[in-house]
């Protein structure tokens, strides 16, 4: 009897002593909310996507009607196209710019602290504020951009930045890149700071110039960081919402629509919660599979 008791004590002691138990205990509340607000809604949206439901009251089960409608919905594909334009241009503009700034700011220039702060600024502003500010910059009448172009004699470049079907999406993309460059810049700066100084010193002794040491030291050392920022940029571009919603609302006539804005207006302006859920689920599936593919491809190379 006593032996069993002491065995029990020992087991309990072991549990209490092990980190795993406490880690579990501390993670429990976070896990609870994670499940409630992030995991559970995914299958739930999947179910809603099979309903014709206005968002109020009871929905009617209509099988895969919403899905077949989605495949034929040209607005949805336009939105997907815009998302991929954003993915592509983000990778092309955001990341190289961020990398360039990071390299410059870590190369012992004067006033580096000042510039770091200045370049970090867009990251400190709230998303909606950025949307409003850029909305004013692009404003056709009182906007900064058009007035600037007029002042320097470039009237022929004046455009209806957010109001024309052709340019609206690109104008919003520029604003989005501006907003996210500092985020990636900080990632890269942190990565560069972590690279051992000796590598550069050795390279210098061997007579490597700045480009060569960037190409053969900085880049390879940053590989993991860059990989992470690419994934973040892709996923972020696919689920972009607030910037575009504030600037154009997806308009004019869907021209700058992305999946998330289309999901939102369908659910809450057209009151088609069922179809909105269909868009939401496909947004999830697209973002999920694109990042899986990217991770798979980059893992193979290593």
């Amino acid at each position: 009897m006593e032996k069993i008791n002491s065995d029990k004590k020992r087991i309990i002691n072991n549990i209490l002593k092990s980190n795993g138990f406490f880690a579990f205990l501390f993670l429990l509340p976070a896990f609870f909310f994670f499940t409630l607000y992030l995991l559970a809604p995914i299958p739930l949206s999947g179910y809603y996507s099979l309903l014709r439901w206005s968002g109020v009251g009871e929905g009617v089960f209509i099988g895969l009607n919403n899905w077949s409608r989605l495949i034929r919905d040209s607005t949805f594909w336009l939105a997907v196209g815009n998302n991929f334009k954003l993915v592509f241009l983000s990778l092309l503009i955001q990341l190289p710019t961020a990398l360039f700034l990071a390299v410059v700011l870590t190369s012992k220039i004067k006033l580096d602290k000042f510039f770091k702060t200045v370049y970090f600024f867009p990251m400190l502003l709230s998303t909606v504020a950025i949307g409003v500010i850029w909305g004013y910059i692009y404003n056709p009448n009182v906007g900064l951009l058009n007035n600037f172009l007029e002042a320097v004699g470039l009237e022929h470049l004046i455009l209806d930045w957010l109001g024309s079907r052709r340019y609206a999406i690109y104008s919003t993309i520029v604003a989005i890149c501006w907003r996210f460059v500092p985020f990636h810049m900080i990632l890269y700066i942190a990565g560069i700071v972590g690279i051992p100084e000796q590598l550069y010193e050795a390279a210098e002794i061997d007579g490597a110039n700045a480009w060569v040491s960037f190409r053969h030291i900085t880049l390879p050392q940053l590989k993991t960081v860059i990989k992470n920022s690419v994934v973040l940029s892709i996923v972020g571009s696919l689920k972009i919402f607030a910037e575009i919603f504030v600037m154009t609302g997806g308009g004019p006539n869907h021209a700058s629509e992305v999946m998330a804005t289309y999901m939102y207006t369908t659910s809450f302006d057209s009151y088609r919660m069922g179809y909105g859920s269909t868009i939401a689920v496909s947004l999830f599936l697209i973002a999920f599979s694109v990042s899986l593919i990217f991770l798979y491809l980059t893992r193979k190379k290593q």
Partner: protein
Amino acid sequence: MNKKIFIVSLILMFIFMFSLVEVEAFSLFDLFRRTETITLWDIRTPEDPARAAVEDAIARFEEDHDNIEIEHVPIQNDDYKTRLSVAAAADDEPDIFMTWGGGGLKNYVDEGMVYDITAYLEEDNWRDNFLDAAMNNSTFEGKTYGVPVTNVAPAVIWYREDMFAEYDLTPPETYEELLEIIEVFKENDIVPFTLANQNRWPGSMYYMYFVDRLAGPEVYRAAVSPDMAGSFTDEPFIEAGQMIRDLVEMDAFPAGLNAMNEDDGDSRTMLYTKDAGMYLMGSWAYSTIGMEDEITQEQLNFFPFPSIEGADGTTSGIVGTVGDNFYSVAEKCENKEMAVEFLRYLTDEKAKQELLAVGNIPPISGVADDLDDPMLQSIFRVVEEAESSQLWYDQDLPPEIAQVHLNQLQGLFGGDVTPEEKAQAMADAIEDYYAD
């Protein structure tokens, strides 16, 4: 270093604890007060001239019923629609809420969310308190689901008298005369019509008036009826679309109209700076402009949308609302009796006076005798003399069709949708809607 981390985490912990304490304190406080709360959502933000009337009604109601408190949550126009639909989806709608009547309200009624107040309106003749036409947009199949509180508001064409005098212009009777005015403004490098169409509904006013003037209000009714007696592909709708294209092509509107925001006042500012000559907008523009720029308001005058010579439509029909901003009681409200009682405060004599004071004509019978402001009198005359009245399509249509209407029109103004395409998209949306 460790000490620093310790201090920082201590501070964070305090902040966290305070945030908890505050929440706790509030709920405890509520428990002991034993008052009942009725929540009220509408769009009466501080920028809204009609806010005073609602606030005053709340104050008077609370004074008469000291165990009831009205929690007023005003939300800005476009956000409001979203917030309400999100709340409704979560079964969390407020006790009293505001809609614009028509298809939007009906959507909620169909889902059993709105309390039928017909019985209250019949007892002690409360219904007689309102203008006859006012209740149409909250009455479905003989049952009434809300009372109109504000806005006898037709859309009219506003202009500055000093500008009309400067270019020797007189308000037009016919569309042909309006086209001549447009020419004069263009010759003087003034944008004839200011229009902020990012919000999409301001542009819709032109379309609705063209249809009304071309063929009268019946063609719209026929096009939206479930038996599909008419269609949005009918001639008047296509012609109305074409007339908008013509106006755009003759530069009657500002460049970049689809990027201009009505809520931000991008349209009105062009009147203040004399960069634009005319402004087709609901009659609420009179009080909005008064709040923003008194100099312009002094010069402000209006004329009704002109008639089209030789067309079969109306010459004096109005597009707009005869009573708007319907306040309804939610089916799930726990004290419907008191909620309806509050609606009486919101539509009584005192509320009427408060609204009139800010230039808003409430749809209360006999309101004509109370109008001191000559501008309000002439607005009301337009409504009284109108041979018909057409509610905004985007509020009358079921929401999903309304969105198609608004988006297609924005495309029409932007030049990437033809009148025929717009018409076809509308017909498809209607068919789709009745198919499921």
